[in-house]
């Protein structure tokens, strides 16, 4: 309980890698499997996997000097290795766009290729329920779960979305797929990830609900489909999200009670509905 409180207050930058490795179980996995990461890199070649990853190399944080092709040392090689190893390790997932941004952040924080791999495994393999596999069923499910939570907690917003036929996937898919990378300010994302590694995927709903609730009146001004999409982009900007300390306090108070049993129940019913729809 004490750990949780400390982590919610923000992990100091210099301890972040160690804390993430510890609380997520990545450290334990790494110690149980010495040499495994390097074996993966020597694994049998998979052309389509390599091509898919290569296509995104220049398209991952192009504004960050360390990720430029010309940088020395160049993090593109590190990024490529982490993603390739992960594709070999979890063949059911392989590579999915979005993982490049997540791995990029992990590399910047840990400054260590192998640790980044194990943290990526903690996220994709355990913490996030099936977001990146070819059917993306876990992602589709969680988008619907968010829709249901909004319907209960912020019915006016749900009614607006329904009225204009805006599907949740249109406005929030990037939130889930990139775990707020490139959507919220860096420091805010890192604070969210502190809790994500420690408390699990529920935190994503807390962030999403807080963003929507805080800007409810603003969203409700929208009068068209395009307007709504635009508002959802706007609400991830400004001082509300930049002041990460206040923001993190808000995510634990604004959305109100959000028991895991509710999330689990909603995930089950939304998933069943999606499977029926095919």
């Amino acid at each position, binding site marked *: 309980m004490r750990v949780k409180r400390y982590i919610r207050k923000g992990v100091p930058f210099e301890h972040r890698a160690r804390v993430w490795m510890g609380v997520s179980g990545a450290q334990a996995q790494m110690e149980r499997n010495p040499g495994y990461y390097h074996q993966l890199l020597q694994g049998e070649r998979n052309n389509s996997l390599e091509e898919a990853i290569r296509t995104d190399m220049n*398209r991952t944080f192009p504004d960050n000097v360390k990720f430029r092709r010309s940088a020395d040392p160049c993090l593109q090689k590190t990024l490529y290795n982490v993603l390739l190893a992960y594709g070999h390790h979890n063949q059911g997932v392989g590579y999915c766009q979005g993982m*490049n941004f997540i791995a990029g952040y992990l590399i910047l924080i840990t400054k260590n290729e192998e640790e980044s791999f194990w943290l990526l495994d903690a996220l994709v393999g355990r913490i996030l329920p099936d977001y990146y596999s070819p059917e993306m069923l876990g992602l589709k499910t969680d988008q619907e779960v968010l829709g249901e939570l909004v319907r209960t907690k912020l019915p006016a917003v749900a009614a607006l979305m329904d009225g204009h036929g805006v599907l949740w996937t249109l406005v929030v898919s990037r939130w889930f797929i990139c775990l707020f990378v490139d959507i919220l300010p860096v420091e805010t994302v890192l604070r969210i990830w502190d809790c994500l590694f420690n408390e699990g995927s529920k935190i994503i709903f807390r962030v999403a609900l807080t963003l929507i609730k805080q800007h409810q009146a603003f969203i409700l001004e929208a009068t068209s489909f395009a307007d709504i999409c635009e508002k959802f982009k706007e609400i991830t900007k400004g001082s509300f999200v930049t002041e990460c300390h206040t923001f993190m306090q808000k995510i634990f108070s604004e959305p109100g009670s959000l028991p895991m049993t509710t999330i689990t129940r909603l995930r089950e019913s939304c998933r069943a509905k999606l499977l029926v729809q095919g």
Partner: protein
Amino acid sequence: MGNGTEEDYNFVFKVVLIGESGVGKTNLLSRFTRNEFSHDSRTTIGVEFSTRTVMLGTAAVKAQIWDTAGLERYRAITSAYYRGAVGALLVFDLTKHHTYAVVERWLKELYDHAEATIVVMLVGNKSDLTQAREVPSDEARMFAENNGLLFLETSALDSTNVELAFETVLKEIFAKVSKQRQNSTRTNAITLGSAQAGQEPGPGEKRACCISL
């Protein structure tokens, strides 16, 4: 074709950009809507859209252009994006044959989810990279003709044909809509120009001017 103001328009046409990852969809869109090109634009995740209002004759047409992620598995969530689309640019990279080889699969995907009357243009992008060409123009043009598609080669980098590509698709849609209007004035079955500023119907709704071509 000139720029109209954003608020004033008679029609909204939803156009989707589809094709493999890395063929240049996002840059085609930014070239057309903002006259911008970026060598290292970011991987598109999910869907993005931009608009530009253009004049076709005396009518102001607002093009609402949707840009989608190209990676195959994203089709699991992008199929909804086709709904209500009246035009599509199916883009391949003419320096990468494998992006052209899968065009047929993209067409099927499109026809499975969009209206059968959708106006489709096959676009071979990156025509500035002449040395690296892997797809002959004639081959792609032939494929387009045989499948009833419009065809152009573009370069989002040096702007070649970008304006023309979008313009051609929009004009073709407009021609279909105008014909539809003439045919339906007597029966009054179809209300055109219903998309007034501030009451733009969502693409999910049945919008006569856009859907019943």
